[in-house]
Every structure is written in structure tokens, then in C-alpha cells.
């Protein structure tokens, strides 16, 4: 598919601007009524989901050129999917997410590139990760955990740690806690160690299709070779890419793909783990876009007139993972969960997605601080989430602002409650 293939979607926009707002039926205050970080920050209509549809239409109709200014519009967007969800409350015939992805591929193909993204792709080519860290150090985070190496031994469950968890030391305690927990439940878990590579999803989001496909193929063969029946990931980005972008690229994983929050619930339900220690904390849960609305499985492009497409065949964000993380938090004794106003499929983004963290850090941090403000106003003492990119964005934003507010990766709280000693993780 190309941008031009979505002409009908773009020409269907009625300019109602619902894509700029949280679900209208759910708005509870003036302050937290907006859903799109991009148009909330940059204000011109073109920076909204609908505005980007019109920009795309203007370009394919030859009314405008693909300039640097257009690339600015295309890339100052987290691909968070909030606009798509909002639009689809009302429409069956518009897929904003698909247009946003095609727009990026078009920019790359026609040479409208963003320097920071080029550096990420270079790093990916050299070291198989988007952070530019050495490939040889990819397994360092797992030292001493006794994880099986699937290159040598068979495992039922293959863990894909993802670039951020592998290299961000600040996040190692949470992924290590996850591994400890799963191993303690007697699961046959393994990982690919140094041979793990980026899933390629970020490259796809940035518009570099060729690179993305290469890494997806690599992932597919690694999973196949491992003989695992489950692919487990703690990375919400990776999870979304496996469920949405891989099939979009025509790549299908033939294993059960599970996010750690789902796996946790399976283990709790099977009675294989129990939360024992109290964690007396009032927290709020931030739905990562990639675990929530953007993890809804891919649905093949509807052939023909989308007005005839049944609602069940449109991705509207409902099929994301929302309940499991909440259920896991609720089962931690002493922990109180309070909700923010923008949650689930109408959640506000952390700011990191779509290459924004790397290319436009100020925009990313502004977006994150908006969310932290919302968490505070919900009366929470801490914000918990289930995505390493979100945790990074929140912590960096707080540091840049010189403010303090506890940000937890969910697995850190789980570790506390299970009673895994800190020195062990």
C-alpha cells in the first residue's frame, strides 16, 4: 500500500476535529480533555490526525510539495493512535493510523529525512539496536539470572527483551524481576542472549520499510529456530509490533505472543505466583499506547468501499490490553489504584513514540509532563506503567524539569510484593 492508496480515507475526513479530543462522552474536566499531543503542542490543524489526512490529500493531489515543513508535520507525531481511536468512535471508513505510517514511508522514499532518525537507522544497521549500543553487550542485563540460551537449549517460552530493556540499566531491575518471577513459577524460559536483535518495529514506524522487514524476518527465523511455543515480551513496543506491524508487513509469528502483564495474570490464575507483601502505595496506571490501542491485532486492509466494512473488521483500539495490568495491580495487597481521566483507549501518550523521543526530546518531555500532571491531579503518589519507553520518557522529563514524582515499571512493584530482594534484581 502507498499513501495514494488511502485517498478515500483522506478524502472522507469531515473535519469534525474529534481526533483532537479525548472521547467526548468521557471528558470530565477542561484540563484533561485533549488527546493528541501533537496538535495540542503545535496547534495548527495540520498537526492533528485529520490535519495529516488533509496534508496527505493535498500532496497526492499535487496541491503541495513534500517539503521539510511537511516532514516536520509528519514526524512531530508519536503515532500514539489516539486520533484513530477517536475518529473510529464515529467512522468506519477512515484509518488514520495507516495513513500516518504510509506518509512516513513516503517521506523516506522521497528523501525527506530526519537526521536523528537516520542516526537511529545507522545504529540499527551496525549494532542491531536503535540505541547505538554494542551488540556484544546485549545480554549483559541477564547476567546471573540463569536464563537458558535458546541458541543452545530448547525453551517453551522465548523472552524478547527489546532494545530499551537490554541497554537501559535503570530498567534492568524490572526485567530481571520479571525473569526471576517466571523462573520461580517453574516456567521453561529462555532468551537469545547476544543474538537477540531489534524487532524492527521502530524502523517501520520511522518509514524505513526495508530495514524493518529485514529485522522482522530475522525475528521470525529466531523464533522458529528456538522451537518455543510462546513469545513473551516485556516491551510494549515490541508487543504491538508483533501483533500489528508484523502482519501488516506480511510477516506472521506462528507462536502465542504475550506481554508480561498478560503472562502475569495467567500465572496468578494458575496459582503459580502469589503476592504476599503489602505495597502501601496509591498509584495510577498509565496505559502505554503500544500495549493499549496500538497493540490491537492487525486486520487486513478492507478491499473496496470502507463504508461497507463491518465494525468488527476495523481496528478501533478496543482489542488492546487494558484489564490485565489493572488486575495485576489490584491483586497487590496494600496498593490502591486510582484512575486518571484519560485511560484505556482514550489514554494520553507518554510522548516517546514514533521517534519523537530521539528527534524532538522537548516535545516528548512536554507530553510526558502533561501526563504526570494528570497523575498528580488524580491524587496518585506514583505512576505505574508497563512499557520501558514510557518509563524512560517520564523519568527523563521529570529530570529535565527538575521535579520529582515516582515512576514505576509495573514489574518493580510486582517484585516488591512477591518479595524478590532488591539485590537479586
Amino acid at each position, binding site marked *: 500500500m502507498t499513501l495514494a492508496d488511502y485517498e478515500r480515507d483522506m478524502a*472522507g475526513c469531515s*473535519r469534525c476535529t*474529534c481526533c483532537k*479530543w479525548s472521547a467526548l462522552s468521557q471528558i470530565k474536566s*477542561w484540563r484533561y*480533555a485533549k488527546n493528541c499531543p501533537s496538535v495540542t503542542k503545535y*496547534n495548527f*490543524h495540520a498537526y492533528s490526525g485529520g490535519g495529516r489526512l488533509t496534508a496527505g490529500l493535498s500532496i497526492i493531489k499535487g496541491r503541495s510539495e513534500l517539503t521539510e515543513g511537511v516532514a516536520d508535520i509528519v514526524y512531530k507525531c508519536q503515532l500514539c493512535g489516539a486520533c484513530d481511536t477517536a475518529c473510529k468512535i464515529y467512522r468506519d471508513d477512515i484509518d488514520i493510523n495507516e495513513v500516518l505510517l504510509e506518509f512516513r514511508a513516503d517521506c523516506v522514499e522521497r528523501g525527506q529525512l530526519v537526521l536523528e532518525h537516520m542516526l537511529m537507522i545507522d545504529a540499527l544497521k551496525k549494532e542491531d539496536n536503535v540505541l547505538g549500543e554494542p551488540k556484544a553487550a546485549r545480554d549483559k542485563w541477564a547476567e546471573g539470572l540463569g536464563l537458558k540460551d535458546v541458541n543452545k537449549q530448547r525453551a517453551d517460552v522465548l523472552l524478547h527483551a527489546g532494545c530499551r530493556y537490554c541497554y537501559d540499566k535503570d530498567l534492568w531491575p524490572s526485567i530481571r524481576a520479571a525473569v526471576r518471577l517466571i523462573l520461580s513459577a517453574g516456567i521453561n524460559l529462555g532468551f537469545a542472549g547476544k543474538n537477540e536483535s531489534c524487532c524492527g518495529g521502530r524502523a517501520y514506524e520511522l518509514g524505513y520499510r526495508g530495514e524493518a522487514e529485514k529485522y522482522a524476518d530475522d525475528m521470525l527465523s529466531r523464533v522458529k529456530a528456538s522451537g518455543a511455543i510462546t513469545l513473551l515480551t516485556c516491551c510494549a513496543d515490541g508487543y504491538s509490533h508483533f501483533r500489528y506491524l508484523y502482519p501488516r508487513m506480511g510477516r506472521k509469528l506462528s507462536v502465542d505472543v504475550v506481554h508480561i502483564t498478560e503472562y502475569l495474570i495467567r500465572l496468578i490464575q494458575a496459582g503459580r505466583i502469589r503476592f504476599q507483601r503489602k505495597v502501601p502505595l496509591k498509584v495510577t496506571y498509565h496505559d502505554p499506547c503500544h500495549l493499549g490501542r496500538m497493540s490491537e491485532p492487525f486486520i487486513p486492509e478492507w478491499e473496496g468501499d470502507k*463504508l*461497507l466494512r463491518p465494525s468488527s473488521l476495523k481496528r478501533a483500539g478496543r482489542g488492546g490490553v487494558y484489564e490485565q495490568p489493572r488486575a495485576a495491580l489490584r491483586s497487590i495487597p496494600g496498593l490502591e489504584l486510582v484512575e486518571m481521566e484519560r485511560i484505556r483507549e482514550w489514554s494520553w501518550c507518554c510522548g516517546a513514540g514514533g521517534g519523537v523521543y530521539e528527534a524532538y526530546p522537548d516535545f516528548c518531555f512536554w507530553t510526558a509532563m502533561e501526563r504526570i500532571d494528570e497523575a498528580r491531579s488524580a491524587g496518585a503518589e506514583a505512576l505505574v506503567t508497563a512499557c520501558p519507553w514510557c518509563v524512560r520518557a517520564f523519568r527523563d522529563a521529570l529530570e529535565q524539569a527538575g521535579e520529582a514524582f515516582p515512576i514505576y515499571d509495573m514489574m518493580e512493584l510486582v517484585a516488591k510484593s512477591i518479595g524478590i530482594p532488591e539485590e537479586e534484581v
Partner: protein
Amino acid sequence: MLPDQAYEALIDAVGQENVSREPVVLDGYAWQPTFNYNPELWMERPSAVVLPGSTEEVRQTILVCNEYGLKFKALSTGWCVTAAPWCEGVVILDLRRMNRILEIDEKNMYVVVEPCAIGAQIQAEVMRYGLNIHMIGAGCISSPLASATSFMGHGWDGIYMSYSPRNVLGVEWVLPSGKVLKLGTPGSGLGWFSGDGPGPSLRGIMRGAIGACGGVGVFTKCALKLFNWPGPPVVEAEGLGLDTKTELPQHFKVYLCFLPDWDSFADSMYEIGEAEIGYIINKNALGLLLSVIFPRLTRKIAKRKAIKETVDVLKNEFEIILAGNSEREISYQVEVLEDIISRNGGFLFDLGDNPLVGIFWWGLVRNYAPPILFRPGGQFMTLFGSDDSFDSQVTAARLGERIKKEWLEKDLIYDDLGDTSWMHIFENGMWGHCEVPFIFDPRNRRQVEAVMPEAIESVMASLEKNLGVGMLAMEPLIRKIASPMQGNYNKWQKEFQRIIDPRGAADSALYTGEAEIDLSTIDPNKLQKMTEIIMKNLWTESGPPR
């Protein structure tokens, strides 16, 4: 292309990041498919877009426009063609950054807002005080300031909360000269509580029935009346759209009422108005309701005679929400309603614990559903809309039925079972409003090209029955035909314009503009009839036609 000097001056006025002349950004304001008669759906590309953040920045922008001989136009949320530039070289003022709620006066029941505080935001905040705001039929996504000062203003809560032009109190208005005029009490520094003084009382000139659609300057603040809200301070609902579930709060009732025919329907409306009961009342076109809920199923069954006949039998339906402050009050209202409906030969269906109550109650109170109208076809057009007695609204609905049938036969619109109108009553039933929606696909050239002829036909039918031109009065093509048949109103409007905007700085196409119709788009038989109607109704120098 905007001259560099003017561009620099705009940057000085509002800051670099708040001005753009990037073609793609500009096209974001030229694309206006909703209620657009031009089959291309693109309007003129503006020469620049600015995002003022305060009244002073609006003023400075207008001064720059004056200095460089540029036209300007403001928009709030910008949801329909009236917000687009209607001529070349317009500087658009997108008021998005002016989005605050400045004051909620609980005791005197008003709120002071900027242009881009949307209905949902204001409602959420004032409900905490036991208050509510009138919501126009476009829904809570639109700007209450825009509908109060500049365009239309009807909604289904009109029975209890009247209509936007009546609810506007003090106003801050930046004139096309750049001068700031304050209407009503703010004009005398006495707060915002009255639109009529002490201080200049110019509400009628500010907008009239339809509104000047950006043609008289920029409204930067206004106070709006608030009304009693006997519901909870925060409404908890599950679901986002048609799936909304919520509990009906104490002292609220929701009914669907069915009447046997138009006459009994109209009588019931009058009686409900006179009895002073009801919080929200709305006649929905039943076929349309089916179409938005089951768009594909409706396509399949629409041609079946039995389905059409069933809808025809049930079409005289309206939804009513009753709200009381006490058990006694709500019981009284229920008794009165039951009496009215039964005396008029109808029946009512209490939605009570029915799962549909969520969408009918919260859907109508928050009014978040209107964009669903785009679901079946992608676009719609709405016709008629002359506010007058309810009987005249019934006449409009009947005319609409006839016109719609004809367009359906030509396959120029989506078949919503040919059911016609949305109707509401205002102010104790003293007057009503009726619109007839036509759904179509904006990507279907044949259907898009049919929009203008449909509109002209509805106007002609209206004029023939002395119903006025309704909502289309702001359209330059329609104004050109309608004004000479209606007391040459545009002549007077132009007199006001001469005083308000002597230099013609505002894009006033929708205020006083006139344009020629392309007669070739009209069926020759209809053209003949149209000419007859025009000739019969033409005003002369000596006054109205005899």
C-alpha cells in the same frame, strides 16, 4: 502568496511559531467538505494562518491585515465550510490557543469563555456546580462562543435552555478596524452578567438569526447563561459511542414517544411547551437513527416496502428527557407527559433500565453523538431550518419528505428510508426548528454535484410556502435569490457592514456576499418553476409583492 513584509509583521504580532504560510498547513483550512456546495470540497487556500493567544494578539493581527490590505477571518473549532476562506488571500485566525474558561459565576449562573473552550469542557466544569450549558445540535465538540456570537445556535435542550443567541450575555468583540468593543455590562465595566446594558446593546447587529459567520470581526470572549443541572456533578459512563452505558440518575426519566400523525405530533409539542415540562426534547429521523446504528444493514433492507412502511408508521416519534429537582417534581412531569401523549392518541416507551438509556440520556445531555451522522455515507447536508411556529416546521418536514423521495429515486443520496426531520421546540413551544438531512458520499462525484441543486430546491419549496430560507441564508448564491424576495434584507445588512467594516477587511462573503447560480445545474422544468416563484415573490421599490 503573502508578501514577506506582511509575514514578518504577523510574526511580530503573534510570534514565529504561531504563523504559517506552508502550503500544506494552509490547506488544512481550505479543506472544508462539510456543508460545502462546491463539488471540489476545497475552498480558497488562505494566504497565512495565525494562532493568536489573546485579544491583544487578535487586535495586532487585524491591524497588520489593515496595514497590508489583507482580508481576515476567524474560526473557533472550524467544523464546516463557513469557517473556510471564501475569497482569495484571506488570513485565517485560528483561535485554538484562546481556549480558557475564564469565570464560572455560580450564583448568577453564567460562564465567561474564550472561543476554543468546547461544549464538553464547559459542561464538565459547570456540572460540578449543579449547572449546565446549552449544547447546539452539532454537539459538544463545537464552540459555544462560536454558536452564540457567529453562527446558528439550535439544539435539543432548547425547551429548557433556549438557544445560543438568546443565551449570550456580555461580549468582547474586536472590530475589523482593530478597535475592541464590549457589548452589554462589560462595556460599562460592570461585569459580564448582561448583554444589553448598561453598556452598548448590539446583540442583534452582532449576529441576527443565522450569524455573520466571521464577517464582522472577531469575538474573543463572551459570557453565556447557565441552567439548572439536577444530575450528578460527574457522570460516570462506560463506552465511547453508541455502546455507552450509564445509570439513569435519580429524578430523571427518558421516554420515546410515538404519535399517530403529524397533527397529533405537533399538538403534543405545543402542549409540552405550554406545560413547561421537559429538559431535552428531540425528534430524530427514525430511518436516520437506524442508518447510523446499522449502516450496512440499512443499505440492505432500505428498499423493502415493509420496512419503509414500518418506519412511516413510527416516524412521528420524539425522545424526551424529564428532569426534576425532587421526586414530587419528576412525578408531576411524568403525569403531565402521560396525559398529553395519551390524549393525542400516542404511546410512550419508558427507557428506564433499558441498556439504550445510556446513549439516549447521556448521549443527548453530553451530546457527543452528532459526528456519527457521517458514518453511513461519509457526509451529509441539512436543509430547511427556518425558525417559526411548530406548525410551519411540520410543513417543512413534509416538503423535505417529498424532496428526499425524489433524490432517493435518482440514487443521489444514501437511502435512510426516506425519513426526514430533526425537530425541536424552544421557549415553551413558542417556536420550533426543523432540519432535513440528506446523507451522501463525498467521494462520489455524482452525489456531491447533487448537493447544490438539492439545496436550491429546498429553498424554493420553502419560499413557496412562506417558510423563509432558513440556514442557507448565509450562502451567497442563495442570498442573491432570496434577498429580493425577503424585503431586500441584504441591502440593510450591507448598511450595517458599511459602519462596522468600512474598509471591507473581514471576509464577509457569508455575511453580505452574493453570487450567481450556474443555471445549467438545474433541471429546466424546475428552473421554470423557480423563475415563477421568484417573480411572484419579488419586492419592488414600493414594498412587498401583492
